[in-house]
């Protein structure tokens, strides 16, 4: 530790900026970042760069990689799996982000009240977010089989007409997957909103009520604008998580039936570890990375503007 500190003190001399601005203030040494940065560099930065390079090769894990330019990306456009995976990934991301945010908000508003059951319910709604995605996948795979508990329960309460081949019918399998994801994570969004609601001053709401604002108006004019930071966090987490969705899909459907629930993460995993095409797989990973960046950028932009308006 002392050597780290010494080095930090030494480096302070050639870093005049902030010190001058802050006058007499002692400067927190950058050296404190080093341990974290080391872990981060080894686990994330180096492998990402090293992996990214493979995207332009035909590396298969055995023979030496040959540079193939953009071939992998051209191939991406014609293969059925990555093509539907791209569409599915976008669809999953957009729909889970919207629906989960709405549901989480609704739950939070309902439970930020004096309901007797609120503590039990908060715990219940949050519980799925605690469980390993692998277990969530197995559980729902069982629940959703054609002769499984879901259909049994629907029939038992007289909703037999609604029974479905939830994961086996290509036209609704993706919707089922989205439903499971929302079920699992709505509680997390709820918790973020509950935290946000703690920052909404009671007096402000009372003042609005005295001014004659109805419940809906108070929600729209007072509560929601104050919840924008919570929305930013909740939506960003959901969006990024859903773009990278892997475990649940891999366990529940493996991307099937057909290519109905294929996601980019699943395709990329299968190309690398089932087919042994690492180069191609990293090309898909690179495309996904670009999409995540684009979405995150657009979303932050959009929400920030909203924040200013509010």
């Amino acid at each position, binding site marked *: 530790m002392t050597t780290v500190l010494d080095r930090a003190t030494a480096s302070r001399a050639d870093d005049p900026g902030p010190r001058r601005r802050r006058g007499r203030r002692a400067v927190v040494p950058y050296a404190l970042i080093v341990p974290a940065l080391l872990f981060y560099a080894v686990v994330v930065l180096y492998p990402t760069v090293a992996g990214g390079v493979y995207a332009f090769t035909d590396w*298969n*894990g*055995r*023979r030496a990689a040959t540079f193939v330019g953009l071939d992998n990306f051209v191939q991406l456009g014609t293969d*059925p*799996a990555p093509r539907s995976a791209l569409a599915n990934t976008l669809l999953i991301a957009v729909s889970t982000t919207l629906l989960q945010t709405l549901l989480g908000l609704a739950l939070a508003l309902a439970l930020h009240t004096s309901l007797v059951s609120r503590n039990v319910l908060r715990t219940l709604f949050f519980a799925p977010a605690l469980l390993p995605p692998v277990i969530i996948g197995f559980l729902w*795979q069982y629940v*959703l*089989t*054609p*002769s499984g508990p879901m259909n049994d329960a629907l029939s038992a309460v007289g909703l037999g007409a609604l029974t479905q*081949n*939830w*994961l*086996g*019918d*290509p036209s609704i399998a993706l919707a089922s997957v989205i439903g499971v994801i929302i079920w699992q994570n709505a509680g997390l969004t709820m918790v973020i909103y509950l935290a946000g609601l703690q920052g909404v001053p009671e007096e402000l709401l009372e003042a609005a009520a005295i001014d004659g604002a109805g419940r809906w108006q108070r929600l729209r004019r007072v509560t929601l604008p104050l919840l924008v930071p919570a929305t930013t966090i909740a939506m960003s987490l959901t969006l990024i998580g859903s773009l990278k969705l892997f475990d649940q899909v891999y366990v529940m459907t*493996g*991307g*099937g*039936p*057909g*290519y109905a629930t294929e996601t980019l993460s699943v395709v990329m995993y*299968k190309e690398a*570890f*089932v*087919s*042994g*095409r690492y180069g191609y797989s990293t090309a898909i990973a690179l495309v996904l990375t670009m999409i995540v960046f684009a979405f995150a950028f657009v979303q932050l932009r959009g929400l920030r503007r909203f924040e200013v308006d509010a």
Partner: protein
Amino acid sequence: MSKHSENPTRGTRTARTAAATLVLATTLAGCGFVNTGGGDGSDGGTNGTSGTVTAYVNTEQSAGLAPLVEAFEQETGSTVDVSSATTDELNQQLRVQLTSGTAADLIRVSPGSSSPVAAGVLGRADELADLSDAGWVAELSEDTRSLAEVEGEVVAFPVSRNAIVMAYNREVFERAGVEVPTTWSELLTACEQLSAAGVTPISTPFQGGIYLQFWVYALAATLVYAENPEIDAQMAAGETSFVSDARWNETFARIAQLNDAGYFSDGMLGIPPDQGLQSVATGESAMVLLVSAGLPQLYGYAEGGEEAFDVFALPANEDASSTHVAIAPDFLAVNAEAENPEGARAFLDFLARPENVEAYADEMGVLPGLAVDAELSSDALEPIMPMFDSGRTAGYANYLWPNGDVQQTMLQSGQEWLDGTIDTPALLEQMDAEYARGTS
């Protein structure tokens, strides 16, 4: 976290606590933090040269090998350290392990070129040891040998052979007055009768696609390979393809015919294999096409056990005497970079002894891997033995396809095909496209 918060020397305390935790955890966990090398090499052995053999096999092999491993360990005083995983999982892990040089001494490899970890693929890349001088090589049957061999070297040992068979519920057949079909039209009639009796004629648990491929291989054995044994060479030479070969088209047309007639399970793309087997055991469905290694599982679902079922070979045309059975060897191979190659070979030699070949086949309800004189106590496969004895067998069609992706596409796009999203030529063209990408 909180109990030190008032303490002014928190930094050092934290460090001390962390160190203590680390020491404690290390003690608790033994040597899980570093690889000490004790368990993975030949240095841990107790008896001369044999030492420890590591093995990575699939779940079925692991079950069948367990008693033999014990016998081997007792006889030689060495240790066989077996890890297992489902075949899918194993294929994925093994690929990474071989790439990274961390694979076990004995590994389960797929036949031919059917996956990235198939005997042919790994053999060509010199990742498997040459076993040609082993004593059991003489007992390899011709079709097994062609799948175990790469460039004239035998690189894989057949632990057993599996056959694709149609298993049916005897009672359901009897109640509907159905005879065991021996031709395609008899099969259609049987389905018709069963359907009329209110049973699902054929259970098709096609979730994930594993059970779909059995249909292709079983029908292709009779329709494609029996008619034209040269098909793989011709396809490799580009003389024909899935979409342009009439026999391949017919194979898929047969499956479509049963599907269109409504003889398959409702919602088949959502039915997992265990439920598909269960429905035959309960009598909701009459029959299911499966690999013989799956029979014990099927028997387990019925109170009557094995007695409740019987098997027949899936007919594919009107000539009962031309029906072939699709069979597949289940391989073990020695990693070229094995830590203990002698031990691994010694274990294979042990498995090759006739009594052990027999024990494994009996335990698992499969056919013996080697052509030794084995007397099987189970008669589960009796109905197909005549075909087996007269050489009316063919390997699974995918074994000589150039890569595993042809099969992968067949399964995934095949689900779209069953669902009516794409037609047969589109499916076959997609398979041709993967075929054209060659050996990975």
